[in-house]
Each structure stands twice: as C-alpha cells, then as structure tokens.
C-alpha cells in the first residue's frame, strides 16, 4: 500500500514528476497513462530509471498491469522487499 509521506513514495514522486506535465499533482490514484500521459516508450524509460535508483528489476510482465501511481509504488516496494 502506498503511503503518502513515506520515503519510497517521496522518492518515486521525484522520479515520476520528471515524466509528468508540470500542472499535474501526483496522488496515489493518479493514472500513469490517462493523467500523466506517459506513453509506452516513456514508461519503459521511467521503469529503467526506477530500476537503477533502487537496484531492482521490474519484469515487463508486471509493467503491463500498472495503472495508477499507487500500483507503481506497490510494485517497487514488492521488488525491493523480494531482493
């Protein structure tokens, strides 16, 4: 579960904001595609940046299920904990 204010949430905000239009505020329910207009290519770049930052691998199988920012936080947390 994403918790606004925790360190992981804040770190991911910092990364994702770079890919988001300036006027959009990130919340757990923000849609990565619909609200942030992150297309498939930008999504791949975003995932790689997150992988590098946290030293994890996020399989493509999981990426296709990501809808909201909360989904992303949950997947990253799951991969960090499974290291």
């Amino acid at each position, binding site marked *: 579960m994403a918790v606004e204010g925790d360190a992981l949430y804040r770190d991911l905000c910092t990364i994702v904001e770079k890919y988001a239009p300036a006027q959009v505020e990130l919340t757990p329910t923000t849609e990565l595609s619909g609200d942030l207009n992150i*297309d498939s*290519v930008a999504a791949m770049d975003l995932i790689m940046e997150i992988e590098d930052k946290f030293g*994890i*691998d996020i*399989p493509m199988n999981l990426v296709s299920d990501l809808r909201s920012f909360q989904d992303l936080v949950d997947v990253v947390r799951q991969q960090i904990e499974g*290291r």
Partner: protein
Amino acid sequence: MDLFDKYALVAGRHGKVLQAGADPFGVCLDKVLSGTEARINGRDTILVGTNNYLGLTFDPDCVASAVAAIRQHGTGTTGSRIANGTYGIHRELEAEIARFLDRRSAMIFPTGYQANLGMLAGLAGPRDVILMDADSHSSIYDGCRLSGATVVRFRHNDPDDLDRRLGRLQDQGDCKLIVVEGIYSMLGDRAPLAEFAEIKRRYGAYLLVDEAHSLGVLGAHGRGAAEEQGIEEDVDCVVGTFSKSLGAVGGFGASNHPNFDVLRFCSRAYMYTASSCPSSVASVLSAFRQMAHRPELRQHLWDNAEALYQGLTAAGFDICAPMSPIIAVRLPDERSAVWAWNRLLENGVYVNLALPPGTPNAVCLLRCSVSAAHTPAQIDEVCRRFAKVAAELSGERSAEAIRVHRA
C-alpha cells in the same frame, strides 16, 4: 463506446502526418522496376529503404528457381507441416541453413516475425527468465510476451547492465535466456556480442542472437555478427530472416542443441501456420548459393554503404551510428522528418520514415538501407537529392523560426 475508440490518438496522429503529403506508412509501389527502383506516383524512384542488402530479389538464378518451384510444387502448400506434410524442398532448405551456419539443425518459418515468435515462445516458458536488449525488434518483444517467461529488459548494448541484472536474478527461474540482435534495425548499430558471450558463460545462461540484419552482411562467410566477432560457439540459438539479404519471405531458427527439433511439436508459431510457399523456399536456396559463390556482393554492399554514409555526412546530416548498410539520418523533430521524407519522395528517393514510439530514444529518422545492387551513380544521385532537401529544409526551418518570432 466503439471498439476502435482506443486508437483515436493514433488515428489523429496519422491524420496529422497525412496533412504533410503522402502516407509514409502506406506507400504504393505501382511497378517494381528492379531491386533498387520502382515507379511511385508515376515517378521513377530510387529505393533506399528495402533491406534488400545483397540485391537478390531480381537475381536471374533466384527468379528462375522460384518460377521452377511454382511449376513443380504449385503456388502454395495450403496448410501446416504437421497436418499437410513437409515438402522435400522445406527439408532441403533447412539442411542448407544448418550447413551454412554449421549448426546441427534448423527449422524454417513462413516469416521472420514468426521465426522470433516461434523460437522465443518455444524456447522459454513461464518458469524461465528472458533478458532482452531494450532496443529489440517488436517480434522479439511479442515472442517474449507469448512465452509467459519473466521478461526483464537491459539497457541497449550495455553488457554491464546485463551483468548486474543477471547477478540480481541468479536465484530466479529455471533457465536464463539472453536475447540480442546482431545489427539493430533502426539505427544500424552492432551488438557487443563478445562481451555478452563472456557474461553468458559466467552465469550459465543461454544466448539467442537475431541475425536478421547481419546475415549476408557481416562475417567472412556472411554468417552474421557472431561470425564477425568470433563467438559462434557461444550462441545457442540463431534466428534469421529470408526477407532481407536473401531476397524472399520467411525466417528460420537454428541451433546445435540435441533436442532442438522438439520445437517442431512445441512451438505453436511453427505448428499452426501454413508452411513456407515453394517459390520462397526455392529462391532462398538459390540465394544461399549466390552468397557463397559471389562474395563480391558483400563488398559492393559495403562500398555502397560507405559512399552513402560519406555523402550524407558531407551534406551535413546527423547519422545515428557508425557506418553500416543501415544509415539512419536523424532529423530534429517529427515535423521536419515528415516534411523531408515527403520532399525526398517527390524528388524520386524512397527511404523509411521512422518515428517514436517505433524508434530508440524517441528520435525521428529518415532510415536508409543500402543494397549491393545500387550503382555508384544511384548512390551519388541519392546524396545529391538529400543535399537538395537539406537546403530546402534549412530554408523551411528558418522561415518557420521567423514566423514563430513574429507571432
């Protein structure tokens, strides 16, 4: 809600491209005049976007073989090999590919796209891990997805990134399969296969190399990037296509693995599709003979590649990768790329327009591919027309800047 609503954005973007002129993704070649020329919109046009690297599509022996095969075997096979049976020439071609690549076995597919689908989904399963280069062709992406394996991308041509990821994934999955290409189709850059091979050995992983754009192009015998870099023994599976250097349609997978042929009963893209048509199989058999007996074709290809690379560089174009038969010219943005592509077509030069998301790093490209069949005069003419368009583009961009400034 309409079924096609989900494509509204794509359709809108396509409509915008059409406003600039012709449809870059639907060009009609009214008459193909040779391997390097066609009549398009009533204009004789030099083709510089065909991937016809060795120029064999109109080779007299290849054409004669295809015609003879149609007369002897008919126009099509009307079904799959597991249901309708294998033709003798299917076996003959598989033996030729295995011999050429010095592999124990080879199996053919009706298209190159299906070759990757069939090989990847056949080789890897839900308990395996595939590590694929991020700039891989769509057929590799689709094959990986179809396999059900855990699919992890590593940074393009980055052995260190592959190494790190394999280190992290050591305890996961039954088998690891690394998937790379010899030459990458969009930019024409080559994979550092020797470094990948060293990593593969260290982790006990398998290595598959797609030589679609490097077969007939690289290596002393034209076997591809693995031959050129001396690491063929480290390559567990080779994938290739007939629709580039070999001048036909189809694809193949080849391997030394003793159980490789079990894929004939486990790879759905092989089992449940109509088998390759006799004309393609026969012309490819001839094309292999041409490759073996006419090494000068490869020399012509590289001479032409160098001439075009130098010519476009001299004209001030930004080329994305070191010289190869794929010469990808980078344009600053989509509008310029579409505009320049149209002007080239109007000037009788056909190249491929490649736009994001189909390109690495979201670059906009005029992608050229050179053929051994291009004459020096054609290459000179292509360079001259590119330079003319560059001058016009420069004027167009200045005019646009003035308009923006005034607004």
